[in-house]
C-alpha cells in the first residue's frame, strides 16, 4: 500500500510542474505588454523598455520560463501584482481560506445530501420519491449557478431581507454562496449515486443475500452501500475541481474576498501575473485533491491497488487486454 501511495505522489510532481509550464506559456503569449500595463498608456517607449529590462521581459522565452519555475517552486514566490505591486503569494494566502471553505462545503453537502437522495431514489425505484429526486437533480444541473445565485439574492436579501446581500462577515453571509456552489454537485452526485446503487442492487450477490434471508436493512447498508460508494469517490474528486472553478464566479456574485474574486479583478486589469498565480495555485489544489481521491480509491478498492503494485500499471493493462483477446 505504501508503495502505491508513494508511486501516486511521484506521479503528481511532473503533472504539477507541467501545468505551471503550460499556464506560463499560454499567459506569455497573451496580447498586451506587462510593462505597458504597469506604466499606463502615456508612458514613453524608453521607460517601457527600461522596465522590460528590469522585469527580464526582454530575455528569451526559455530563460523567463526557467526563472518563473525557479521562483515558483524553489522560492515559493509567485511574483508581484502589476497593478499594486503587492506580493501575489501573500494575497492568495489571506484569501485562500474563503475559497477553500466554499469548495469544501460544497463537497460536504454533496456527500450529506446528494448520496442519500440518490440512494433513496434507487431503493424506491419508480416511486414518487425517485421521480422527485430525479426531477430535482436534472433541474440542478440545468440552471447556471450565477443566475440562480442572483435570483436567490433577490428573493432572500432584497425582498425578504433574511440574509445579507454581500460579504461573509457573519455566518448568514455564507448560506447562499454555499448552497449555490453545491447545487450542481448535489444534482450530479444524486444521479450518480442512483445509477451506481441500481447497478449494485441488481447484482447476484445481493440476490443471494436476500435468498439467504438477510434483512433488507443489513443488505442495503452492509452489502450494497460500500460497493455502490466506490464509483462515487471519483465523482467527488471531479466535482471538487468543478466547485473550485465555480467559486471564481460565485465569489463575484456574492462579493466574497476569495481567490476567485482576486482573479476576476485581475482579468479586468489585465494583470497577468495574478491570473497566472491564481490558476497555478488552484490547479495544484485540484491535483492534490485528485491524489487524495486516488489514494482513497486504493484503500477501498483492492483492484485499483493491484494495478500499481507489481510490474507497474501499463504492462498490467496490456496483459489483461491480451488475456481477453
Amino acid at each position, binding site marked *: 500500500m505504501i508503495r502505491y501511495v508513494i508511486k501516486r505522489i511521484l506521479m503528481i510532481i511532473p503533472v504539477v510542474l507541467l501545468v505551471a509550464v*503550460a499556464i506560463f506559456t499560454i499567459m506569455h503569449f497573451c496580447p498586451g505588454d506587462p510593462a505597458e500595463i504597469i506604466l499606463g498608456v502615456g508612458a514613453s517607449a524608453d521607460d517601457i523598455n527600461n522596465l522590460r529590462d528590469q522585469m527580464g521581459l526582454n530575455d528569451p522565452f526559455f530563460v523567463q520560463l526557467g526563472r518563473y519555475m525557479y521562483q515558483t517552486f524553489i522560492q515559493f514566490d509567485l511574483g508581484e501584482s502589476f497593478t499594486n505591486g503587492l506580493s501575489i503569494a501573500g494575497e492568495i494566502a489571506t484569501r485562500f481560506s474563503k475559497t477553500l471553505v466554499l469548495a469544501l462545503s460544497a463537497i460536504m453537502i454533496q456527500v450529506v445530501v446528494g448520496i442519500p437522495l440518490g440512494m433513496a431514489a434507487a431503493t424506491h425505484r419508480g416511486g414518487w420519491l425517485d421521480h422527485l429526486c430525479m426531477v430535482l437533480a436534472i433541474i440542478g444541473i440545468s440552471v*447556471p449557478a450565477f443566475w440562480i445565485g442572483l435570483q436567490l439574492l433577490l428573493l432572500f436579501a432584497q425582498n425578504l431581507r433574511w440574509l445579507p446581500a454581500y460579504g461573509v462577515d457573519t455566518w448568514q453571509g455564507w448560506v447562499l454562496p454555499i448552497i449555490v456552489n453545491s447545487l450542481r454537485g448535489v444534482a450530479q452526485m444524486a444521479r450518480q449515486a442512483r445509477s451506481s446503487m441500481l447497478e449494485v442492487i441488481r447484482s447476484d450477490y445481493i440476490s443471494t443475500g436476500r435468498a439467504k434471508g438477510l434483512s433488507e436493512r443489513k443488505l442495503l447498508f452492509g452489502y450494497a452501500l460500500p460497493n455502490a460508494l466506490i464509483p462515487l469517490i471519483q465523482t467527488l474528486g471531479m466535482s471538487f475541481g468543478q466547485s473550485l472553478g465555480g467559486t*471564481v464566479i460565485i465569489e463575484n456574485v456574492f462579493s466574497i474576498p476569495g481567490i476567485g474574486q482576486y482573479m476576476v479583478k485581475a482579468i479586468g486589469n489585465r494583470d497577468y501575473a495574478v491570473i497566472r498565480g491564481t490558476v497555478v495555485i488552484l490547479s495544484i489544489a485540484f491535483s492534490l485533491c485528485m491524489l487524495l481521491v486516488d489514494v482513497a480509491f486504493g484503500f477501498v478498492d483492492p483492484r485499483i491497488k493491484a494495478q500499481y503494485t507489481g510490474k507497474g500499471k501499463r504492462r498490467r493493462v496490456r496483459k489483461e487486454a491480451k488475456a481477453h483477446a
Partner: protein
Amino acid sequence: MLDTKNGVALAEEDAVKKQSQIKEILKRLCKNKLAVLGMVILLLYILVAVFAPLIIPYDFAEMNILEKNQGPSAQHWLGTDDFGRDIFSRILYGTRYSLGLGIGACALGLAIGVILGCIAGYFGGWVEELIMRFCDVFQAIPGTLLAIVISMLLGTGFVNTVIALGIGRITLNCRMVRAQFLSQRKLEYVEAAQATNCSKVKLMFVHILPNAISPLIVNTTMGIGGTIMMAAGLSFISLGVRPPLPEWGAMMSAAREFIRYYPYQLLFPGLAMAFLVLALNLFGDGLRDALDPKLKN
C-alpha cells in the same frame, strides 16, 4: 464472381442490420416520454435559431431610448432593456449565439479529441504516452479556469470563445476514445482488417471508431448544455461573448447592474438558457438509455 455476390449480399444484410439498429434505438428513445419532451424542446430551439431573423418582432439591435427599461407588456412581451431593445427579440436571436457556442465548442472538442484518442489508442507506445501525459496536464487545470486562461489569450468574440471552450473538451473525448480503443485493438476483426491490408486510417476511423461511438454521442449531447452554461459564466466575468451581442450570458451580465430595479431583464435570458440545457440533459439521458439498454431495466 461468387465473392462479389457474397459481398453484395453481405452489404445488404449489413444495411438491413444497421437500419434496424437505428430503428431499434429510436423506438426505445420514443418510449421515454421525458426524452421525447427534451427532443421536442430542442428541435424548437433549433428552429428558432435557424429562422430567428424571420420571427423576431423587432430588430434585436434596434435601440429606442424612449421605451427603455419597460416591463413586460403586449407590445414588448418580455419588456425592454436599458437601451430600449426588445428583450424577446434578443433572446430569440441569442439562441443562435448560445446554441452555436455550445455546439461549436463541443464539435471542436470532439473532432480533435477523437483524432488524438484514435492515434493514442491505436498506435500505443510512446505516441500514446505523449498524448496521454498531455491530457493529464490539461485535465489538472479545472475546466472553468482553463477556459478563462485561453479566453484571455485569444480575446473575446464568438469564434475565440468557441475555441476557449472547446479545448477543455478535447482531453475528455481523447480519454474516452482511447479507453474504447484499448478494449478493441486486440480483437479479431482488427487483426482481420490488418491482414487484408486495410489502411491504418481506414481501420481506425471506419472499423474501430464506430464501436466506440455511443458514449461519445451521449457525452457530447450532455456536454453541449454544460458548455452553454460555461459560456454564460465567461460572459458574466467579462470574457467570452460580450454585449451588445445578444448572447444570453452577455445579456445576463448586462442585466446584473439593474437587478434591483428590473429583475425580469435577468430572469428571462436565464429561463431561456435553463430550458435549453434541461432539454439537452433530458434528451441526452434518454439517448444513453436507448443506446445502452443494459443500463435501463
